[in-house]
């Protein structure tokens, strides 16, 4: 089975055994999520966002053996990322006061939306043909029909209809699926040493 199709808990278990491919998968699986929390929720600048991004994965690597529940890796990473972002903002505000402090309720809602977005992204993996890649390129990478057509060797005139068709397939796949995630907005569920 491809590592991309493994459950989070299985990827974590393989990482603990020192499997480099599993670590690559874990980083790949959560990189967008961590990036979005740093850059979109807490609106860190590129330099701070990169520092926090690397710190999140460094601590994850160091502490993966201490995780009490392998299935809790996503909320664990969310909590860690939030904490490091808040620390960074506090440190920066000592040097330069922030214009508009981040409201914790607002960040809870934003991260809950990212949890849902992550579940939807995971749904892309199960779509047939080029569907996952077309949707990712159009919506997440903001590529034009022309760029997508050139990259996938498809006529640009067919991209719009493919996007619509692929969205339909994604919708069908997601609806009725049991929710996998508890929202990360609940800060009581996961502790970080």
């Amino acid at each position, binding site marked *: 089975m491809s590592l991309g199709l493994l459950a989070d808990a299985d990827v974590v278990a393989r990482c603990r055994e020192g499997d480099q491919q599993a*670590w690559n998968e874990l980083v790949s699986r959560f990189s*967008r999520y961590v990036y979005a929390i740093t850059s979109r929720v807490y609106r860190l600048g590129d330099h701070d966002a990169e520092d926090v991004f690397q710190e999140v994965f460094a601590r994850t690597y160091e502490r993966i053996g201490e995780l009490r529940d392998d299935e809790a890796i996503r909320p664990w990473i969310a909590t860690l990322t939030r904490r490091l972002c808040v620390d960074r903002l506090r440190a920066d505000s000592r040097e330069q006061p922030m214009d508009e402090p981040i409201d914790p309720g607002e960040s809870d809602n934003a991260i809950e939306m990212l949890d849902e977005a992550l579940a939807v*992204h995971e749904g892309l993996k199960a779509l047939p043909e080029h569907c996952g890649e077309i949707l990712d390129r159009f*919506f997440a990478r903001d590529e034009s029909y022309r760029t997508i057509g050139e990259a996938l060797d498809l006529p640009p005139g067919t991209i719009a209809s493919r996007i619509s068709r692929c969205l339909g397939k994604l919708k069908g796949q997601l609806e009725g699926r049991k929710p996998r995630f508890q929202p990360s907005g609940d800060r009581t569920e996961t502790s970080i040493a």
Partner: protein
Amino acid sequence: MITKGQYDEESLGKLLGALPPAPEGWVAAAQELPRARLEMDDIVARAEADAEFRAAAMKDLEGALEAAGYDIAPAHLPVLRERLSA
């Protein structure tokens, strides 16, 4: 507001757009962590055993690493500096 479990094209598009890819270099550096950790252990051990290498590394870390044939991603240098200074 997106209601969980109920999707239309607009809400799906919004959710897909909420997770743009992280810069490739950031992802690659994080994926390199296990190898980088091993290499950093080696560098720290060498610095402890070789005063000349340690002095060169404290003066110009990137230059000393390059001269000694190490290949550490820039993202890991702050951690290495910390470990060498400890």
